[in-house]
């Protein structure tokens, strides 16, 4: 019983830490080190991203992927244009309006960008 009471007393004594006068300064130093760590981390991530980007771009150019992408784009454009022409006859469209694969792809891309902006704004507002 005495053992338990002494142990409890000891825990209380350990818990009673004297307040140090430079507590404010200590907290500032913690935050400074935190910021320093984040700055270094950002620089490192940025540098790694730049290196990775350069390597990736070099790989893409050297592999002829750009040419393949252009060919693929032309094929898919022709495919979509052909099917659009079958689905929507040009006579239905207003004068001066053309509907082809490029227009569809551009419209879809803009819709994705608009949706992304909308989601970002909604998250910020919540």
């Amino acid at each position, binding site marked *: 019983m005495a053992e338990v009471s002494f142990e409890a007393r000891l825990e209380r*004594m350990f818990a009673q830490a004297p307040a140090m006068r430079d507590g404010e300064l*200590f907290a500032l130093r913690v935050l400074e*080190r935190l910021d320093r760590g984040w700055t270094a981390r950002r620089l490192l991530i940025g540098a790694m991203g730049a290196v990775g980007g350069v390597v990736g771009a070099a790989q893409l150019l050297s592999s002829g992927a750009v040419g393949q992408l252009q060919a693929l784009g032309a094929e898919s454009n022709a495919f979509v244009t052909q099917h659009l022409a079958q689905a929507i006859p040009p006579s239905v469209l207003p004068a001066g309006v053309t509907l082809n694969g490029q227009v569809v792809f551009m419209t879809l891309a803009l819709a994705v960008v608009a949706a992304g902006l909308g989601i970002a704004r909604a998250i910020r507002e919540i």
Partner: protein
Amino acid sequence: MARTAPDRPALQSAHDLELVALASTGGRAAFGELARRHGSAVRGLMRRMGADGALADDLAQDAFLAAFEQIGDFRGEGTFQAWVKRIAARLYVRRWRKSAREGLLAEGAEAEAAGDAGEGGAVSRLDLDDALKGLSQAERVCVSLCYGAGLSHAEAAAALNAPLGTVKSHVKRGLDRLRARLSPDGDGAQASKVHG
């Protein structure tokens, strides 16, 4: 309505758990308030474990930085202060083990203890900080881990990479010495001789 960071007075009046929640979403100011509130306690524990002033401050800062990194792991099961103290205590032990030779907790390692801690007989009014100085470093670390940082004997043994029995015996001897030194009736000299 855009969410804005709470101002300083709001942080000062916030509960630890609210500050932890803010810090876990990257709130530096909230974490700074936690460091301001609990810095002294963590630094005090480091000193009680045997670190000098500069080392105690360095380790306490390291502990808060580690706490920020791992703040998602804090579930609020104990107090934030106790959680950071445990992190700091483990950091101190790691540093201590690195700097010390093999056999840190060997039975012979207690030779450095102030075996005559109670020789003077006038030690009944010593406070904890002074009383801890009368322990061997191994006893001091073991007692501080268990009663200051709240680790179980098994957790302390794991942190120290030492056998459980060794840790228990250091804690037991440390407690005996502290009891003798902190006893209000001033029988420290006798008790020290018996247990020392």
